[in-house]
């Protein structure tokens, strides 16, 4: 919300503090100042002129030759504006005037020119060309109050504008009045209510206007007042200036007044052309099925039966929708230059009804923003008087004595308040007299019922004071948050040392040579398909594009995308810890490597293959003493379709199946234009093992080697199990030390050389014993149909 400083000043008799001090006060009140800007006035060299003559220029569709007067001399000017009419009062930039550039810069110097053979001595200007407000659709127009020949820069000066960002609870501060009220309360000075003392009229009929409310809950208050004999004209300068300063475009004296009052008091209003209201009747009702409404913007809405409407009887007596209550007016009723009699609506609508109606039609308007936060429910009669008085003042009309009104003023429920709670919650002391004064300055009624027992009745404009803590905040806010101390709570609490962010694991992976990445949880269905990942389970209602329409079902596609982006690198290792969204939300770890795992560039390198990838996982497990086992995947196409069916492993961690690891399916790799890539997708947590100390066994071990030649489809794990079983309990370790294929070996077979170590608990084994055990092994191996070489 923009607050022109000179406008804010009109609420005070004494001068406001300087801007810096004011900004500090407002920030301290919770009216957060976003910025302070100096809005320039009209440039020097621009004069107020009347248009005397307009005639088309031969050879141009839009250029016109105009003759304008500044009262003492006439100027011939070529003008390209769509609407320029005789009698119009507007602004002429004389040759030599420097016009501001949109968005800063040096701007344009107006010169004497000739167009299509017609001399042009200056330029008739739009508001944007003058840098006054953002409208380029036509010339700036003035009323008779702008003196002919006057230097516009003396009439339209610069303005300091404070922009505040209001929080949604502070509906009361959504106006100049509201901000003035808060600032006055903080400063302890009075403020002037612009409508104070105005005659709010005589409630009742007799004015030919009538209100029919079908839905009192949706429309608790409605006032309608006639203003007769108005003349629709450009607004006076002061009004144009006020609106221009807050970024609104002045239109005509009727609409401008309603906008002015909206920002001045925080109360939206609407001026109807009385002639267009059927029998002077305004109805407030819900929409009928199938009903439509054409908005001011010419958009036609299909209405919902829950929409709250403003309507009027049509020619056939049927009720016709003319506006979306509290959101936007319709075309039907709008005032035009021909309007002479005005019906002024100043109403209050139920915030939720307005919000839902606007949400249904995706309309964001100033009125909606105000009504859904809450407009002062007792303000309507006063605001109507203020707006009607101003309309009469600027349009020459007469305000009806009588005003049609529904609903009545409300009193907010009183809040029981213990002043001691300020000390209790804020830990600073505010004297009782000060607390009372703060609350009263804010418009509260305070009744002291007993010791530390007050009743505080908030003013009608405060929607955010319903419990004791709200009252504490008001006292604290006016007293100032700078008085809050810095203490440390005395509390007995022993925090859990759990590591829910998997920090240790991340450090181990980083130390193993992998770079952590963070991807988006949203992705596209196509992307998941591209990565052979599970189909999405969770879909976003209003995604930021289809490629972000669903929640990820696996982490590794994010790593694939990252790998694709880093394709130029010869080697890459990545990991991510994050959540995926399947039936349940699950925590996962994904790893990816491609290219050599170690190297110097000129010498040896560690090949990036399945085993160096597996080694990362093994080392990661070993560092926390976890048991990691990789076994063939039962049905890779179903269980791990993203993996190469021949290079796919099911991973178990401490005996629990946690996911899959292997080489990325070449088909998927090709889609990402990647080569040989290894990936794993594992469920978290990957926990360590409880460590139990075992006494050192000092007995020597006996070692034997044996090579087994078996079909290459027989896994090492199967051979190991076969041998271990035959070797019996004295077998200490059994590790492969050579795996060989090809050469003189039969195709489809391979030789796996194994090293056996045997040890007894409490004695040295004899060679004979160990040889006997090895014979068992050899028998078993041969029994299984494999060859051995000792």
């Amino acid at each position, binding site marked *: 919300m923009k607050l022109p400083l000179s406008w804010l000043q009109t609420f005070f008799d004494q001068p406001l503090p300087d801007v810096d001090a004011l900004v500090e006060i407002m920030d301290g009140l919770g009216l957060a100042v976003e910025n302070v800007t100096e809005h320039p006035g009209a440039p020097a060299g621009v004069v107020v002129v009347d248009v005397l003559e307009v005639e088309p220029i031969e050879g141009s569709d839009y250029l016109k030759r105009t003759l304008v007067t500044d009262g003492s001399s006439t100027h011939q000017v070529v003008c390209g504006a769509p609407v320029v009419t005789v009698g119009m009062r507007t602004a002429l930039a004389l040759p030599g005037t420097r016009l501001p550039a949109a968005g800063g810069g040096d701007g344009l110097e107006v010169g004497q020119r000739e167009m299509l053979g017609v001399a042009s001595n200056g330029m008739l200007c739009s508001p944007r060309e003058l840098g006054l407000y953002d409208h380029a659709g036509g010339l700036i127009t003035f009323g008779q109050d702008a003196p002919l020949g006057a230097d516009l820069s003396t009439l339209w000066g610069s303005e300091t504008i404070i922009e505040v960002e209001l929080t*949604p*609870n502070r509906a009361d501060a959504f106006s100049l009045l509201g901000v003035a009220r808060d600032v006055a309360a903080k400063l302890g000075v009075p403020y002037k209510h612009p409508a104070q003392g105005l005659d709010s009229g005589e409630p009742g009929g007799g004015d030919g206007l009538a209100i029919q409310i079908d839905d009192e809950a949706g429309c608790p208050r409605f006032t309608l007042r006639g203003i007769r004999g108005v003349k629709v004209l450009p607004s006076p300068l002061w009004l144009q200036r006020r609106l221009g300063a807050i970024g609104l475009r002045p239109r005509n004296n009727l609409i401008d007044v309603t906008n002015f009052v909206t920002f001045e008091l925080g109360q939206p209003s609407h001026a109807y052309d009385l002639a267009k209201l059927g029998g002077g009747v305004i109805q407030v009702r819900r929409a009928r099925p199938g009903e439509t409404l054409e908005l001011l913007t010419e958009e036609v809405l299909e209405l919902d039966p829950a929409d709250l409407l403003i309507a009027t009887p049509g020619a056939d007596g049927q009720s016709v929708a003319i506006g979306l209550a509290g959101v936007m007016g319709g075309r039907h009723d709008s005032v035009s230059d021909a309007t002479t009699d005005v019906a002024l609506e100043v109403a209050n609508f139920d915030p939720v009804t307005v919000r839902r109606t606007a949400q249904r039609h995706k309309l964001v308007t100033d009125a909606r923003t105000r009504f859904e936060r809450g407009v002062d429910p007792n303000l309507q009669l006063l605001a109507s008087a203020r707006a009607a008085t101003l309309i009469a003042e600027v349009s020459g009309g007469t305000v009806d004595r009588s005003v049609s009104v529904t609903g009545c003023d409300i009193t907010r429920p009183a809040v029981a308040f213990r002043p001691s709670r300020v000390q209790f919650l*804020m830990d600073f002391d505010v004297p009782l007299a000060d607390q009372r004064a703060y609350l009263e300055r804010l418009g509260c009624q305070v009744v002291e019922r007993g010791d530390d027992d007050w009743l505080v009745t908030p003013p009608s404009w405060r929607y955010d004071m319903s*419990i004791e803590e709200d009252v504490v905040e008001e006292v604290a806010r006016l007293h100032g948050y700078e008085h*809050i101390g810095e203490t440390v709570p005395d*509390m007995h609490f022993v*925090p859990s040392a759990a590591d829910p962010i998997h920090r240790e694991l991340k450090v181990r992976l980083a130390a193993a040579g992998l770079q952590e990445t963070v991807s988006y949880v949203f992705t596209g269905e196509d992307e998941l398909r591209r990565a052979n990942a599970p189909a999405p389970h*969770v879909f976003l209602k209003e995604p930021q594009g289809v490629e972000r329409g669903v929640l990820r079902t696996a982490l590794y596609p994010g790593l694939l995308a990252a790998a694709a982006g880093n394709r130029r*690198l010869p080697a890459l290792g990545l990991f991510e810890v994050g959540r995926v969204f399947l039936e349940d939300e699950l925590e996962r770890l994904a790893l990816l490597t491609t290219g050599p795992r170690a190297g110097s560039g000129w010498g*040896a390198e560690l090949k990036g293959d399945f085993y160096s990838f597996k080694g990362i996982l093994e080392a990661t497990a070993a560092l926390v003493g976890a048991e990691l086992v990789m076994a063939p995947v039962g049905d890779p196409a179903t269980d791990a379709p993203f993996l190469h069916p021949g290079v796919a492993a099911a991973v178990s961690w401490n005996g629990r199946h946690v996911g899959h690891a292997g080489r990325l399916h070449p088909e998927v790799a090709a889609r990402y234009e990647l080569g040989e890539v290894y990936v794993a997708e594992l469920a978290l947590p990957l926990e360590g093992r409880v460590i139990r100390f075992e006494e050192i066994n000092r007995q020597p071990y006996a070692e034997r080697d044996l090579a087994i030649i078996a079909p290459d489809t027989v896994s090492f794990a199967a051979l190991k199990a076969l041998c271990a079983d035959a070797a019996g309990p004295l077998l200490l370790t059994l590790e492969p030390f050579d795996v060989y294929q090809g050469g003189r070996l039969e195709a489809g077979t391979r030789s796996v050389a194994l090293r056996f170590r045997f040890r007894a608990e409490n004695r040295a084994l004899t060679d004979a014993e160990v040889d006997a055990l090895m014979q068992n092994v050899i028998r078993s191996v041969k029994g299984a149909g494999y060859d051995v070489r000792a």
Partner: protein
Amino acid sequence: MTEGSEQRPGSQTPEAPEAAQWLADIAAAPDAAALQELRVRLIGKKGEITQRLKELGKLDPDQRREQGQRINVLKQSVESAIEARKAELERRKLDEQLASERVDVTLPGTRPTEGGLHLLTLVTNRLLDVFRSLGYEVVTGPELETDHYNFSALNFPPDHPARDTQDTFWTTDGRLLRTHTSPMQVRYMEAHKPPFKLVVPGKVFRNEAVDVTHEAQFHQLEALVVGERITMADLRGAINEMAQALIGPGTKTRLQPTYFPFVEPGAEFAIWWTNPRSGREEWLELGGCGMVHPKVFEAVGYEGVTGFAFGFGIERLALVPYAIPDIRYFYQGDMRVLEQFRGIL
């Protein structure tokens, strides 16, 4: 040692005429084998000197003593010459080996690929270190949430514009991506009894236009402290402790009133710091805070306690100090960005 009780080698010149030659041969022995040969020839079982010692028995006692002494001296000097030559030969061999093993230490090493943590993890870890040292417990919670935990239980009334400030990503099944880490306040309180101090790091989501400072996905850290009588001064004290730990002693904190439905009174907070990039001292506006709203306590069945909560975005604490121009860098997985923050494991 008594004078004369032992002969020092070399104190008497060995009188064997060949002695000088033997010693010269030993000193010139080209390798261990030649040296061994000399040893055998001179002091082996049948060596020349051994032979002479054996012949001493033929002499009369006086001569025997005198000759014996002389030959023993000779033997000792030969032995020590051999030892010296042996040591020299070994040293020479080692020198040769060392010379042959020389490497060019300036060539690049064979290095494992380096990894690293994401800058957001580094910043989060740093913050969590601070909070753990202050006695806070770290908890995390779901990212896909319900209206109840994200809004209703946090006192966001239904159909209230306060919900608009959150720009929610709704799912087609009526759930939502959490817009803040605050749902964990409710989840934790449902499962635990006060007093406690906890922090919740995690991803949050806002459906707003993405630009250099706004992301649809970002990270927050939330703190919640509940006890018998926690005050707004405790809140400010906690923020100050965090600021001291993060930035160093002497920093200041500022609280200004604002509105969040789940706190009352509510405030936004800033810390006074020296911007490491610009070198300017300024307020760093970090986040929102306040006293837990009674309606939130009501929603979890707490009575007779007060508490404070504060939360802030983690990206800001990563962007500002490193002058990173675009928040989207965090999620693009570009190694040129990621690898710059290694070395702070």
